């Protein structure tokens, strides 16, 4: 059955057309009848779920260069809304977050 489905692509095409809405519905599709008999679609679903799961684990890991704060401060000082004597760099040392 699996071999015939893969060769002809019947069932698979219909299932894959339906797949975005099945996944977005958040339902458990592992018991979908088509997946019980089709390894290709079963692998596909597993991969897509794996990618979505891995994406959730991506943390913000990059800091902007110090130049970004210099530019922000420079702009605000030029606009006259921030004083020039604020010392960039002190903030990190002195800021203790209390929750």
């Amino acid at each position: 059955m699996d071999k015939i489905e893969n060769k002809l692509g019947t069932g698979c095409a219909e299932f894959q057309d339906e797949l975005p809405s099945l996944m977005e519905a958040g339902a458990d599709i592992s018991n979908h009848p088509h997946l019980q008999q089709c390894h290709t679609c079963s692998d596909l679903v597993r991969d897509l779920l794996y990618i979505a799961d891995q994406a959730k684990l991506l943390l913000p890991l990059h800091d902007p260069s110090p130049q970004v704060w210099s530019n922000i401060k420079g702009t605000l000082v030029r606009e006259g809304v921030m004083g020039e004597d604020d010392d960039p760099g002190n903030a990190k040392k002195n800021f203790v977050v209390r929750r």
Partner: protein
Amino acid sequence: MTEAEAIDRAKNGDGYSFELLYTMHKRRVYSLCLRMVGNTAEAEDLTQEAFLQLYRKIATFRGESAFSTWLHRLSVNVVLMHLRKKGLNEVSLEETIEPQQEDGPKKDLGARDNVLAGSIDRVNLERAIESLPPGYRIIFVLHDIEGYEHNEIAEMMGCSIGNSKSQLHKARMKLRDLLKTRTLEKARR
């Protein structure tokens, strides 16, 4: 000083408190910009713009949502505005980047090959996301990484919820292709 105190003081124009807020949130804002545009120089410019807008708009923050959520939304809007100016939004939403896929994502009707599970690391995934076409990348970043719902994305992007769902599916399919290609290339070496 707590974050709430820093926000109150920054609302009154206190530069020191504003710098504290920058220190706290710069990484998240910059990472969001970087993932959405895939370019460090552009991401730094957008981070700068987001915090300048924050300074100008912080007085309108009423605390109805968490400050980080509010700032995040402001930053997403800065990036989307930038992309609209570049004309990328329309291009991506009409899917002209990959016209061969106009009728939906490519079907996988082929023979069974290796599955991805357990084979991708953070670096490879980040690189694959970077190489997605802009329209796919933005929806993927907003939904799968940043956790926005389709209705929120549709509102921000000015597209339908269905379009957002469809772009997300295509993005994941494209990522799967990219990651599989990389895995196979690695195995051949």
